[in-house]
């Protein structure tokens, strides 16, 4: 567990402007778009409270659902993308989105997803689900999306 946190945090510090992509490994890169294979990318969403990066118990079911679709084997990659609503500064929100994505990644490794199969990214306030002005608390933007390919 410590290894995971260390790895993710080391990668996290590198990212403080714009969407930050943290790859836990050099995953197979022939086809890099996240949206391909729509059939198997249901974009599970883990919701967070305002300003929080803690996963609440009622969100654990989503994580369990995610591990029940993820097969064993080298080509599979699970993408964990954190977001934040526009309350607070953009840099704070980028950090928060990374913290949220890291929390979800940790919860997934606790469920047996190998760390090298995970790609973790923080989007901050970019690519929001719901476009809002600054300082608007929007639940749909306080999420970590899980998808896989």
């Amino acid at each position, binding site marked *: 567990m410590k290894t995971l946190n260390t790895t993710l945090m080391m990668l996290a510090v590198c990212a403080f402007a714009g969407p930050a992509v943290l790859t836990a490994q050099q995953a*197979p890169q*022939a086809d890099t778009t996240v949206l391909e294979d729509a059939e198997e990318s249901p974009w599970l969403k883990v919701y967070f409270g305002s300003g929080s990066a803690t996963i609440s118990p009622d969100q654990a079911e989503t994580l369990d659902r995610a591990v029940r679709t993820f097969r*064993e084997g*080298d080509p599979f990659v699970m993408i964990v993308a954190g977001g934040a609503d526009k309350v607070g500064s953009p840099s704070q929100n980028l950090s928060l989105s990374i913290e949220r994505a890291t929390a979800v990644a940790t919860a997934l490794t606790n469920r047996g997803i190998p760390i090298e199969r995970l790609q973790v990214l923080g989007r901050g306030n970019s690519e929001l689900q719901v476009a809002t002005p600054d300082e608007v608390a929007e639940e749909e933007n306080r999420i970590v999306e899980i998808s896989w390919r």
Partner: protein
Amino acid sequence: MQRFHHTFCLIASLCPAIGWAQDSGADAFAARDFAGARAIWLAEAAQGSAEAMLGLGLLADRGFGQSRDLDRAFDWYQQAADLGLAEAQFNIAIMHDAGIGRARDASAAQLWYTRAALRDHARAQYNLGLLYETGDGVAANPAVAAHWFDLASPKLPAAAEKSQDLPVGTNAIAAPQILFSEESVAGVEVVWDAAPETSATFLVEALHAPSSNADYDAPFFAQTTAGSGYLVGGVNNALLRVSNLADNDLDYASSQWIAPEGVTPPIGRVTLIVEPEAIGMRDAADIFADQLRSAGYWVRVNDEAPAATRDYYISYGFSSDQLFASEIADYLPAHGEIMPMKQVAAAAYPGEIFVNLSALQ
């Protein structure tokens, strides 16, 4: 050292481009030479390699070096799974569970998660625990869920958290329904469905049928588990049965016997205990034994009584066998009505009766 490593990686990554042969399918795959990996794995799969079949399944599943083909992926996984490769069994289970490329089939997912779980696949143990915990398409059984979460706990912290919260202990029982059994060189594998909210104590017995008119032996394998499957190593030509035991040890409900072809399972087991010095007792026991055997029971005649049976003429280990014991009592000589007794510390297996002829005197 690091520079050497980088150089080595660079050379390795160039291999497919300059046409060097790869040593293994995995090497070719790692170098992203999918055509090369496929060729090697096809040859190995033809020789019966389950790992190669898994590799071919992964290529088809992700569409590497070919168009994506979930049916073909499933077929390769299935072939590897049938050979006992846990990762492939797990992938088959996932495809059934999540309905990937097919309609969801919770029973099939349950079976294949269990087969992988029996081979120590932690994620299969966890997912099987989730199925039993939530009753998602199968019977909800928290005690069985707790067992599988427990097994996954050392590897998966989430499983350790789950297993703490689940209630265990119930006297409700139901005959386990056998989902799968297979005898192979590795032994016998059996997977069953636990009924909702029943006890998670399952006795797995394996025994050999006696040759005609011979005494039966105690099971050469008898083990309890809180899970929903078992792998019994080094077993062949055995009868196998799974019994759900109530947590108070009073009652049980058994599956049908799984018997090798041509072997008739017993309708019950009866141990006759004689005193070797008592004149005529052995002869009488042999006559009873013949009668019981021709009625379909397995019988043995012993000289020594286990402590739990010593004081009783007819005794049984589980309350569920009271009626069976009364039927046996009707076969046997008695002055007046005989009341079969429950052994205090059960010496009998489910469906086994002890008759201590010297206790009749």
